[in-house]
Each structure stands twice: as C-alpha cells, then as structure tokens.
C-alpha cells in the first residue's frame, strides 16, 4: 500500500506512475472515446470493468490495464462494434506484419 515502484522507463509524474506501457494509454483512450461518442455509457463501462476485476480476484493493480482491455473487448463485442473472429484475425495479421516487415520500414498490414 506504499508508493508503487516504478518500472524502468515508466511514464510518471512527481506523484507516481501514469502508464506502464504505451498500449495501456491506447486502451485507455479507446474506452474514453467510445464512451464519449455514446457507444456505451459510463455505467455500462464501470459495470463491465468491475465484473472483470472481480473475476480476476486479488490483484495489486499491476495487471489493471490487462483487465481494462478484457473489459473493452467484452463491451465492444457485446455492442456489436466488432466480432471475435475479426478481432483474432486482425491480431494475427499485426503479428505477421511485424515479423515480416524489414528493419527500418514502417509496419503496415498487408492488403487483405
């Protein structure tokens, strides 16, 4: 319960950590923006995230944004904003793109 340790390179201010990794900030922004645009309500978000955190059980907060992402996927799927297979295929496609893009070139998805 004392001040958390900072990971190397972790963004923080004088009071503590902000995001541990860039993807956390991206996941955070996605949820904020979807809610701002009315794709789901603040209450729906709090309930979904709360349920994921409850299911995860004891957690010191360090996996918080992983739970955040699970909640975000659950809500976007249940709202029909995307589909599980599409999402899985796209995840694989990004991995593939990283593996096969030569050094120094921007990583881009291949034309599908």
């Amino acid at each position, binding site marked *: 319960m004392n001040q958390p340790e900072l990971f190397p390179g972790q963004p923080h201010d004088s009071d503590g950590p902000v995001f541990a990794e860039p993807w956390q900030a991206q996941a955070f922004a996605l949820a904020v923006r979807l809610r701002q645009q009315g794709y789901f309500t603040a209450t729906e978000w709090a309930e979904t995230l709360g349920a994921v955190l409850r299911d995860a059980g004891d957690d010191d907060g360090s996996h918080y944004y992983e739970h955040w992402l699970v909640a975000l996927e659950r809500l976007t799927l249940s709202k029909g904003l995307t589909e599980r297979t599409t*999402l899985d295929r796209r995840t694989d496609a990004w991995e593939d793109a990283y593996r096969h893009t030569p050094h120094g070139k921007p990583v881009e998805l291949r034309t599908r």
Partner: protein
Amino acid sequence: MSSDHDHHHDHGHEHGQDVPSPTALRVKALESLLIEKGLIDAAALDAIVDAYETKIGPRNGARVVARAWTDAAYKARLLTDATAAIEEIGFVGSDRPHMIVVENTPTTHNLVVCTLCSCYPWLVLGLPPVWYKSSAYRSRAVIDPRGVLNDFGLTLDEGVAVQVWDSTAELRYLVLPERPAGTEGWGEEALADLVSRDSMVGVAKVAAPAGAAP
C-alpha cells in the same frame, strides 16, 4: 492513424521489427478495426492520450485546492457545486462526471475510494495510481480506513472521524485537505505546489512547508 505513426509509440524500433506483446497486439487490432469502420477517430485518440499523459494531472486539483484556501467565496462555491467551481478555473472535460468536494477539518478526515472498479476524478487528478486500483485498497478502505491510512503513514487522533466516499461512474470525489500551518500570506501558486495527489485522495495530509514555524 497510419501504422507508421502508431509504431512510433512502440518500443524496440531501433532493433528491428520486434513483435509487440500479445496484449499490445490486441489493442492495435481493436484500435485499427474501430478506426477503419469509422467508429473512432485516430486524432481524437491521440489527443486523449496526450491530455491524460501530460496535460492533465494532479496539478489541476492542486490549483483548485489552493484557490479554495485563499478565496473564501470560491471555497463556498466549491463545496456547494464542485462541478461548476472546477469549470470556473478552466478545467472542462468533455467526459465529465459530477464532482463533489469534501472538506477535511480538525475533526473530520475524508478518504476516497472506488470499491467497484477505479472511478477517479481524472479531470483534476490525472490517471489513478496503481494502489488506488488494487483490490487491497478497494476492499480495505471501507472496512478499515484507519488501517489503510496507517499503511500510508498517516495516524489520526482518536477524536477524528473518518468519512469514506465511494466513487461511482457518475460521481467523483475530491478531498479538500487542511491548509498547513506556516503558510499565512502565501500566494495561490506557492500553495498549489504544496498540495500532493495523495492529500486530495485523502491518504495523506498536506505537510507544512520546510522551515515553517509549527
């Protein structure tokens, strides 16, 4: 957002095309699909990341507290309609839940928690610290607030009542800490520098400035 720009935020580009973690890839997948479908705008996402990462932080809250300490009329407005009083200072979020400010006094200490998840007054305090999101804090703050405060190094006198405020999606709390002794005549800016994030969540007091007479 072009993937080129996106990659810029990822680690490892000096060493070739390291594959991001599976979790980071899932974020990229969801983000790119939502952008393609036109459901979400890449520039808006960047603006949010930038705002919460660099522009919004506990400094906003510290300015609100410092204003309340120096301006009795502002303090009265803050305690009756915090949402409007915070807006008055110029902090306006497009995604803004209702705010309530609770005042610490010599006889009452306020502590803020979100037992359900991690509702937090982002507009004035930035992103929540890791401990605020931990299940230990979320569950213990209500059951044993004095024990939690002890863990943070804050021991309250027996006679001080502890009030715990449970945040929700629609309602966020900010603690107005007590102005420390030795700051008589200080300006708003100097006072704001004294106000820590923890004091506005209620797990700390604002320490008297170094060298101040007790």
